[in-house]
């Protein structure tokens, strides 16, 4: 279970000196969603150092995080804890170990909308997510309320250079494939 390469992998992909953590608990003490986490933030950091790879990657904690970065700002050793969680999400997805899939799925749908239109098409993204979840009607009242107040864009907001936008995405993805070869 112990994986001594894990600390190295996380430090390398984030540029954060995770091993400087001396367990002061500040990150956990300031976290607004700690009650919804299965493992406290300072313990996630400790698990990384100990090489408990699966414990970290299957945790609910990395998906509960809101990226408010309170922990990162307060860390006395300047570890971007929220940034580390963000990196752990990527590894967790790559290895199919996600404790929760909604956050990632919504982010994918969000980006897909940006790739197509250049800007977020709110209605399309929300509906796609809802269809994906097979849950079209739970927030109908909220949706209608927002529509009535003119607070959801019904139509896409296309940029002029949509071709250029698609190319940016493609070039970044191609580079990623080359990088991992």
């Amino acid at each position, binding site marked *: 279970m112990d994986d001594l390469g894990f600390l190295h992998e996380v430090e390398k992909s984030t540029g954060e000196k995770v091993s400087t953590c001396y367990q002061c608990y500040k990150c956990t003490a300031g976290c*607004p*969603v700690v009650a*919804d986490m299965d493992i406290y933030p300072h313990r996630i950091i400790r698990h990384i150092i100990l090489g408990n790879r699966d414990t970290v990657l299957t945790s609910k904690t990395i998906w*509960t995080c*809101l*990226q*408010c*970065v*309170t922990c*990162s*700002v*307060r860390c006395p050793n300047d570890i*971007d804890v929220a*940034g580390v969680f*963000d990196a752990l*999400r*990527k590894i967790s997805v790559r290895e199919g170990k996600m404790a929760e899939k*909604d*956050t*990632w799925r*919504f*982010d*994918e749908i*969000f*980006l897909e909308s*940006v790739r197509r239109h*250049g*800007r*977020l098409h*709110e209605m399309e993204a*929300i509906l796609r*997510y809802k269809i994906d979840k097979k849950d079209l009607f739970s*927030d109908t*009242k*909220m949706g209608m*309320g*927002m529509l009535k*107040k*003119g*607070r*959801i*864009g019904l139509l896409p*907001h296309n*940029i*002029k*250079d949509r071709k*250029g*936008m698609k*190319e*940016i*995405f493609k*070039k*970044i993805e191609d*580079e*990623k494939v080359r990088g991992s070869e």
Partner: protein
Amino acid sequence: MITLTYYPGCSLKTSSRFYEESFKAVFSFFGIGHKELEDWSCCGASAGRTIDERIGYALAARNLALAEREGHQLFAPCSACYNRSMITNSNIRDDRELREEINKALYPLQCTGTVEVKNIIEVLHDHVGIETIAQRISYDLSSIRVVPYYGCVLTRIMKMDAFDDKEDPTSMDSLIWSSGMELLNWPYKMECCGASKTLTNKDMTLKLSARIMDMALSLKADAIVTPCPLCQMNLDLLPYLGRTEKNLPVLFLTEVLELALFGTLKGTGSHIIPVDEMVKKVKKQ
């Protein structure tokens, strides 16, 4: 007259269109011009960076590259756009490898990381100033009690100096104060509203935003004031998120100035939590 290059971001064109109308009214009163960034795109928000760091950088850098052709300043009123643009601008400037990689993807656009990214608070301080605001107001707002709510990402910019204190900012306080409103001290300036969990974990947003609302109510405030579109939205959505208790209106910072200058709000109809009771407290000076 100064003309700022304006980067609206998705929010100010859809869910927070009345924020745009509001700042435009205030800017034109004070003689600040703005020119919308030609063919701007999404900053990537938190989704871009979470899925792939490079996509996050490239999306924010595309707008910075467009802005570099326009001048040296980019005005981003949305806190998320501001945060992503600031971080990307600085990293592109300081990290040669990253700059080369992102510019390869952006080609024929080029980003060097040399524009100054400015948020709404900075623009109001730099180009208007609290003295001018205090001198030019026409309405008495002294019977309106408000709490300043900055939200997470405006000042919590990682690995960089922020324009204000990261944990106890005061720059918006002085702007509100100069409008004549009664400013309350409170501990939730920086509490998280639930951010982008509104759709994926509604209960979490409800819990976090309700806590902020409850604190404002316990201090007997009349309204919450924020510069951030996502914070405004989450708090304003509380009645739809399932909250049955009383709610206070959630104003954008520029709406405070709108009230002080014109006595009315252009965006009255866009607020989900009604603002009428609060607006009634505005008196002609």
